[in-house]
């Protein structure tokens, strides 16, 4: 049926290491010495996908989430016939357009216009189809003025817009989109999301892979969570994202032992050991009240002396929205040398003006250019913020009111500020009384 996707027991394995011949000479030598018949070093087989089955109805918009390396990209490549399954079957009804990358096949020497034809053709459009949609594509891209300029003179943003403009005008029964929104400026992302939202009215089947969980929740009613090459959960988007974030955050609350986190990268010269949340007088807290001061203490161990490192973290909501990123680098702090051994780094926050919810911290330690990663732990730490009387109004709020609140006052027509409001609260938050 046009627009439907059926995946049955789909598996894909890759061979790594082992005795695989990589040059003609090795291949020939293998043939001559009958290497095939001898039992050589066993090569390692990794399963990018294992026994995945699901069915998607025509017109459904389905999000696919999962950690890096979970198998999402492999799944998309199998669906779009870029690569072939090791076993199992993919049945796709109708024409598939895959946007695994925007502007694939653009040639820098050709003009914008020429590249529209080339790219459109690569994506499976006929010349007549491009002719018909040319004006719309150019208008959407917003690069009319430079359409006759070779795109090697384009900025990366312009190239991206042009690429998306072509892809967005593709008529297909099934659209497969991978992370194209991860690049580009905010205005462009919004435009892309609007276009994608528009797809719903066209009754096209869409598969959308993204780390932007907010975008997935916006666009998709159904969501598939892939982990370790298998379908971990398949259901209503909100439930799946919730479960995914719970899993990523680890479920545990203030216990933030980082001995063996699953999502660790880096060369290990510096490793985070644990994180604690302290009150200003140094007492460890399991939960922080909204609006309270807090010290976030990052315990690390340097396996060797490291000069000029930067350490910091990103904080996410439980729906995966980035709240803030901060680090010694952001503050222009130069740490000349991190001595061998254990130590800790404190971030003092005078007023934790976050709405009550659970937040996930991704810690990282890099060199001062950010090129060398010593340690990076994705969502390994949970910060729980509990309800508090933040506006001194006796009313309590949670994440339905947003992510943050500011020290603030309401004021009607220039008269005296209302009541107590946050006057006092704000002064409590001032680090140094003036």
């Amino acid at each position, binding site marked *: 049926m046009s627009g439907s996707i059926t995946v049955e027991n789909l598996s894909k394995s890759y061979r790594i290491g082992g005795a695989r011949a990589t040059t003609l000479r090795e291949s020939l030598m293998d043939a001559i010495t009958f290497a095939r018949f001898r039992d050589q070093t066993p090569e390692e087989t990794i399963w990018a996908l294992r026994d995945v089955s699901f069915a998607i109805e025509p017109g459904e918009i389905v999000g696919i989430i999962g950690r890096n390396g979970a198998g999402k990209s492999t799944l998309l490549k199998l669906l779009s016939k870029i*690569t072939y399954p090791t076993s199992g079957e993919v049945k796709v009804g109708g024409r598939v357009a895959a946007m695994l990358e925007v502007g694939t096949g653009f040639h820098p020497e050709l003009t914008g216009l020429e590249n529209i034809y080339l790219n459109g053709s690569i994506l*499976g459009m006929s010349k007549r189809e491009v002719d018909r949609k040319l004006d719309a594509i150019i208008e959407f891209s917003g690069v009319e003025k430079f359409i006759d300029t070779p795109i090697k003179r384009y900025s990366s943003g312009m190239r991206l817009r042009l690429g998306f403009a072509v892809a967005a005008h593709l008529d297909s029964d099934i659209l497969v989109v991978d992370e194209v929104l991860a690049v580009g400026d905010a205005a462009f992302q919004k435009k892309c999301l609007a276009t994608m939202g528009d797809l719903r009215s066209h009754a096209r089947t869409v598969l959308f892979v993204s780390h932007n969980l907010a975008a997935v929740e916006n666009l998709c009613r159904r969501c598939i969570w892939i982990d370790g090459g298998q379908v971990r959960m398949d259901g209503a988007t909100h439930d799946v994202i919730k479960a995914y974030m719970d899993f990523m955050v680890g479920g545990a609350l203030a216990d933030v032992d980082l001995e063996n986190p699953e999502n660790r990268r880096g060369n290990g010269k510096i490793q985070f050991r644990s994180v604690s949340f302290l009150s200003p007088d140094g007492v460890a807290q399991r939960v922080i009240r909204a609006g309270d001061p807090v010290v976030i203490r990052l315990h690390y161990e340097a396996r060797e002396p490291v000069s000029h490192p930067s350490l910091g973290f990103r904080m996410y909501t439980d729906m995966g929205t980035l709240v803030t990123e901060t680090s010694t680098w952001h503050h222009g702090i130069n740490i000349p040398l991190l001595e061998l051994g254990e130590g800790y780094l404190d971030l003092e926050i005078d007023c934790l003006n976050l709405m009550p919810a659970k937040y996930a911290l991704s810690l990282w330690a890099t060199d001062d250019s950010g090129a060398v990663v010593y340690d990076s732990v994705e969502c390994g730490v949970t910060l729980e913020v509990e309800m508090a009387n933040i506006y001194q109004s006796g009313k309590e709020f949670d994440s339905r009111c947003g992510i943050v609140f500011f020290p603030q006052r309401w004021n009607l027509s220039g008269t005296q500020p209302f009541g107590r409001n946050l006057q006092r609260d704000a002064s409590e938050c001032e680090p140094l009384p003036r």
Partner: protein
Amino acid sequence: MECIAELWRFRELSYFFAWRDIKVRYRQAAFGAAWAVIQPLLNMIIFSLLFGRVARINSGDIPYPLFVFSGLLPWTYISGVLGFASLSLVSNEPLLTKVYFPRALLPMGSVLAGLLDFLISSVLLIGLMLYYHVRTGWALLFIPVVMLAMVLLTTGVSMITSALCVKYRDVRYALPFFIQVWMFATPIVYPVTVIPARLRPLLVLNPCWGIVDSLRASLFQEMPIDFRLMGASLAVSLTVFLIGAFYFRKAEKNFADVI
């Protein structure tokens, strides 16, 4: 059957690949597309001086420059296309790993793009023929058959070398030698009489020889057409094409994984 339908659906793409290759090939070259004329002309002059004057090779009734140019015309096409087509998959790696389309269109695009240079050189050949007052006749009608063999052969070999190159980059280095040897194994710059008579039957296995000889015979009235040779070269070219298509189809399943 299904793959032929796919090729047909995407047929415009091979034209676009060819168009891109042609557009890009002579960009930022001061002489631009003139290179398509200069290259074969220079080759002809060099070979005429070396073999015609210095080595005094006898090319029979046909003036040596014309003899060598008519041989170089199909050969330049075959060797030039092989050079481009063999790398067509490797140099378009992002396309192979990010988009689906019938992979064979990449080498086919090179095969198509080469035809433009072939046509430009053909015009040059006509000029030479007028200059030397060569007589031609009804045999000209066989030129399409010769070109068919030439394109089939080139496509077949290109599909093999381009697919091999995805897995073994050795092809990139081995190919120039292979082409060179192939050229001297074919009576292009020397007449076939140079080859000992007892070895000549073996030449039938080199489809290039049939193509070169049949093209000359179609052009020049002084040379009789050897229909058995023409038929043999067409048959060998078709076989190479089928082997190439079969091998390519088998290999393309792994392109995205091994490249």
